[in-house]
């Protein structure tokens, strides 16, 4: 199976923002998580891979296909679900899927009907296939999005923040479909939700401000951080002091009180207790490190 290799990909917008800086990634078949805060450059990277945006330098290759120059070839094997999209309100799911199937080159009517029906079943939209898309809920719309992405049996599937705004049940359903596909497809999932990656991905990368901070297998990455994470429940007004004294990588509320996570080679004592590292800790420690570096 073909893997996707990205090397030295850079892009600077006309307003001077360095959206991508020397990104190099090898993405094998399977689910790949792309983790980063809002504005990290995830969408730019994904649009560039999806042939929708130009890079200034570097290359993107899927097997033999150069995504930057052989756009048409890549699009034939590409499934793309953008972060935001709209649907024609006045036509039904089935009609729009047929339309998109034609756009993707599935011109034999019988084949088209088969795959559209299969995907409608797969995404559990079969019952509502004749309803106008204007009545679709967020989850249905997102599932429709994945159905259209799968129309052409893609070898490369790019899904950009697909679970934003979905309730937990819908999210699970959505991930089930993705993980099934990832058995023989390169699936790139971008998200800022750490749990998504932990649950699904065999490989991942963390990017921030256009740079790859870390890449690898989520479990291995967690292992590297294991034993360095400590946690303490504090008062709200103590937060600033702690931030000065420790490397506070995360803060969250539990029953209304802030809990902070710090990273430290040694046990900081002072009421901190050691906790198991999660991917979240890996993520936040990297983000913290990269923003410190910038300063």
């Amino acid at each position, binding site marked *: 199976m073909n893997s996707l290799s990205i090397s030295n990909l850079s892009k600077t917008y006309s307003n001077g923002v360095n959206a991508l800086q020397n990104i190099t990634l090898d993405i094998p078949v399977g689910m790949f998580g792309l983790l980063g805060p809002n504005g990290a450059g995830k969408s730019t990277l994904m649009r560039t891979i999806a042939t929708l945006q130009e890079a200034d330098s570097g290359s993107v290759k899927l097997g033999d296909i150069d995504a930057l120059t052989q756009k048409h070839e890549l699009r034939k094997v590409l499934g793309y679900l953008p972060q935001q*999209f709209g649907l024609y309100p006045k036509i039904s799911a089935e009609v729009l899927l047929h*339309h998109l199937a034609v756009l993707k080159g599935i011109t034999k009517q019988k084949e088209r009907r*088969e795959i559209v029906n299969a995907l409608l079943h797969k995404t*559990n939209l079969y019952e509502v296939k004749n309803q106008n898309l*204007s*009545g679709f*809920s967020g989850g249905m719309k997102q599932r429709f999005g994945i159905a259209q992405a799968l129309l052409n049996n893609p070898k490369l599937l790019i899904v950009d923040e697909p679970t934003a705004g979905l309730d937990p049940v819908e999210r699970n359903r959505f991930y089930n*479909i993705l993980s099934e596909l990832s058995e023989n497809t390169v699936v790139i999932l971008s998200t800022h939700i750490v749990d998504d990656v932990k649950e699904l991905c065999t490989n991942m990368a963390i990017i921030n401000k256009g740079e790859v901070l870390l890449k690898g297998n989520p479990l291995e990455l967690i292992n590297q951080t294991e034993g360095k994470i400590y946690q303490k429940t504090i008062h709200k007004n103590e937060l600033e002091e702690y931030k000065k004294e420790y490397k506070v990588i995360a803060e969250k509320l539990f029953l209304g009180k802030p809990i902070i996570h710090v990273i430290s080679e040694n046990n900081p004592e002072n009421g901190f207790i050691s906790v198991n590292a999660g991917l979240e800790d890996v993520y936040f420690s990297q983000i913290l490190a990269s923003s410190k570096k910038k300063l």
Partner: protein
Amino acid sequence: MWYDIFKFEIQYRIKRPDTYIFFIFIFFFSLAGVDFVFQGIDMGSVKTNAPIVIAKAMAAVTAILMMVTSLIMGVSVLRDYQYNIESLLFVNPIQKRDYLLGRFLGSFAVLLFVFTGLLLGFTLGEFMPWRYPENLMPFNFLAYLQPFIIVVLPMLFFGSALFFVSGALSRNLMVVYTQGVLLFVPFLLTKSIKNDFLQALLDPFSLTTLTDMNALFTTAERNSTLVPFTGVLLYNKLFWVFLGMLILIVGYFKFNFSTAKNKKPKEKKIKTIHDLTTAANENLKIPIVLIQYNFKSQFVQLLQLTWFYFISICKQVSFWAIIICALIIILINSINLNITYDVASYPTTYLVIKELKELSLYFFVIILIFYSGELIWKEREIKLDLIYDATSISGIISLLSKFLGLLLIYIVLILSLIIFGITFQTVNGWYHYELDVYFYGFFIEFFPFLVLYTFISFFFQALTNNKFIGFILVMVFVILNTVSEFFGFEHDLYKFGGSGLDSYSDMNGYGHFLVSYFWIKAYWIVFGILLLILASILSVRGTETSLKKRIMFGMQRLTKPMLQFVLSVLLVFTLLGSYIFYNTNILNKYESTNDKLEFRADYEKTLKRFEYLPEPKITDVKLQVELYPKTRDYTLEGYYILTNTLKEPIYKIYLQKPIASEINLEEVSFEGEALVDKQYNQYGFYIYTLKKPLQAGEAVKMKFKQRYTTKGFKENDSNNSVLQNGTYLTNKALPTLGYSKEYELGDTRIRTEFELPPAKGMAKRNDKTELTYSSTGGNADLINFEVTIGTDKNQKAISSGTLQKRWTVGNRSYFHYKTDKPIVNQYAIISADYEVSKSRWSAKNDRLATPVDLEIYYQKDHQYNLDRMTQALKLSFDYFSTNFDSYQHRDMRIIETPNYIEQAESFSGAIPFSESNEFMLNIDDQSDVDIILYRTAHELAHQWWGMQLQAANVQGKNMILETLAQYSALMVMKKKYPKEKIEQLLQKEQEVYMQAKKRYDKQEVPLELVEKQDYIFNAKGILAMSALQNYIGEEKVNLALKRFIRDWNNSNGKLKSKTPNYPTTKELLTYFIEVTPVSLRHKVCSLFENTKSNSNIIFNGK
């Protein structure tokens, strides 16, 4: 609070580039505003900067710019919804009143700023180089400011109120785009209101209103005084401003100050509830699909997508709104078949097509401009573009399918129009369905126009990547392309789209015009294909939108086969262009309008000195004509006998070949030989010196051969005399003697441009030379005429004279005509595939007189009015031969000619009538005037007034020829119809006269000195003659005319035979005075000698 919103609105708009784009667009459009609105309209002596002209032009331009008003006013509330910030906005403690008031006033202030461009543009327009100083009065800023305030501002207010409210309530962008142009619908509707006052009151653009106001003034007043803000104009403005306020109030109450757009979504949500009831079939395998990119699969994609886009337009509410508006317009205005004097034509197919096209054109253009933008932006507008762009569809297929989808819309609309047309014909009792003519009329004449402009619209949308600017650029392009003609961009090779097709004729179809039309349309359509490819390169795919990036991105898409295709299209384009150029500029001579004018100016400058030199007169014409209608060639061989009627010998012959590059004059030879003294080949003017001078009374035979050769096709071919069916040559197509005044430029303004003295007009009544020239010119007095015409076997050839013999050789037919008596030098040679209707007239009171054979040559299926014509001929012969003199020939023929020429003429023994007029009129005896009788009698009367008796070629000649023919026709009408009908006719003529009089009142000349003003010699003429006849009685008038013809007829006139001079109105009037009692003489004189007499008195006079 409202003031903050007002300020915010203005600040927001100040930063937007479209505000300035609109301003600049309006400014430049207004610069040429007056010229644009009054282009091609004869304004008489009203100046182009008269207040009324400015007011009308401003009103019209504002009407056209209503779309801009809509774009500015319509979006001010809609914008909040478009960017989904309404929920953020409306939770703030803003009062609905403040919000709406602030937004409305803010946008209106911006609108006023943008429209100062109109005031500025109009004002500066006066100083543009294309305005002629002689058409201008001294500059007066008030003449611009006043109409801007009283005409434009109320219109803007009404438009603003309407568009603001409809934009806010509908929250639909398409409404905003189209409502500006749809305002024309009520305007067009007011056109069908019969009541003048109501029509003027309800006209939203106050165009009719201003016209009505205008009618109250004289030219001088129109030029000098500002448009008074009183009367119907005031009421009109009050009405529309009031309506605007009403709309604002209603809008205020209807506007729902909450986020929910309307209640519908709630219903829809109910449907979605049972979404998650069943589990997905997770074990289902996704089938493998085969994705192929070969020709066939791309073709299937193209078809599928075309259909998809077609359906998507059909689903738009706005589309149906436009269609319904169009339907209302077509149903209410209906198909107007009236041609002249309120008489309708039969609903022939080409007439119905012409009407339907005129009624629907506007809507087609709206659909073209808006829906091409809509389709290009379809995916992006609902944000499906990223999904769409990541699919493997090729850019050109996607664009092409949108293009074809729109064309399919046109096709369906056209088919509906055809069905409507056929239904209309059926309802009107016309069952002669011509589907082929419908097909040609729409799909050959009309469809290519739509296709070409759709290419343009797609291209501009792709290029600008901004829908608004795209729309505006398309309109600018349309205007520029039209206007460029006046700046010398005329050649079909560089005037986008080329010229249209001349009218369809039942006789000649589209004739030879079709060939060049096809080539030129093919050329432009290939160009359009290139534009479409360019558009696909420039189209946005993905998120890069800067033009540079798009070009870079787009070039990548130019794969090798694509590049080969582009190159081959380019090659085809060049080849077509070269072929057209070869035809129009190499095989034929290309002349721009300016070249033609210059040629005529040079002709006059070079040759004027040869005018009025001693010349012989043509006394015999014998011709052998061979017509080849299929190839549009002919040869014409024969001789003139030239007789010296002067007292001195003639040494030189000045010969003028008809000026046309197709015509070659070969083998000119004179009996007794002559030397070519000088030749002006450029002008086809040759001077021969006779070896033996022609002594007084002597004659010489001049042989010549003339050949007309059609080579390829010409640019903008206007030749409608040498045709495949309906060739119509007159003596003007033959060599003439001497300098030909006909080629002189007539328009004084153009003459000054070429440094020529002002046109002199017709010669005065004391001009010694022209008095000896008859109205047909100085070339001949009377001629013996003999012609043999050969033509295609299926055609019949007709000329003056009696048919001597008719025979066929192979596939050619020959017709030999010879006149029994000398005729005036005015004859025609006509050939077409005719049916013939024959009858005979004999004088009732004179059994010995020779009967006259009457023949009507007509196009198959045009038999409707044959009986009327025959009867008209008979009635006229009865009246004229009794009251004037007997008819001089043995034959009379009416001949149908193609509708390119709409006027009827008269030759010795032959009257050509146009197919679009007399032959297709559908006269309702209850309500209509019998125009066929009227016209037939008029033309037949020329056999006396013009043939038996010729007028001198000086001022007033048209009173002798035309006014007397009008009188004769009136008398025939009286014989057949009751008084009411006659009054109806005179009423009609009076309207014609009064309307023209208003336009030209400064220049009105008395009848006796009339030149080419047809409203005087025809319309006023018949009124004056009718009055004369009321004063002194029919017998007296006829007695005068009988004496006139007795003394001045050109074969044995008592006075004519003693003088070389022809009679003028001076002579004619003496005959009238002679039969008038002394007490009435001054009244009679004033009819013809004065212009002051009120024409109402003429009409009612007793």
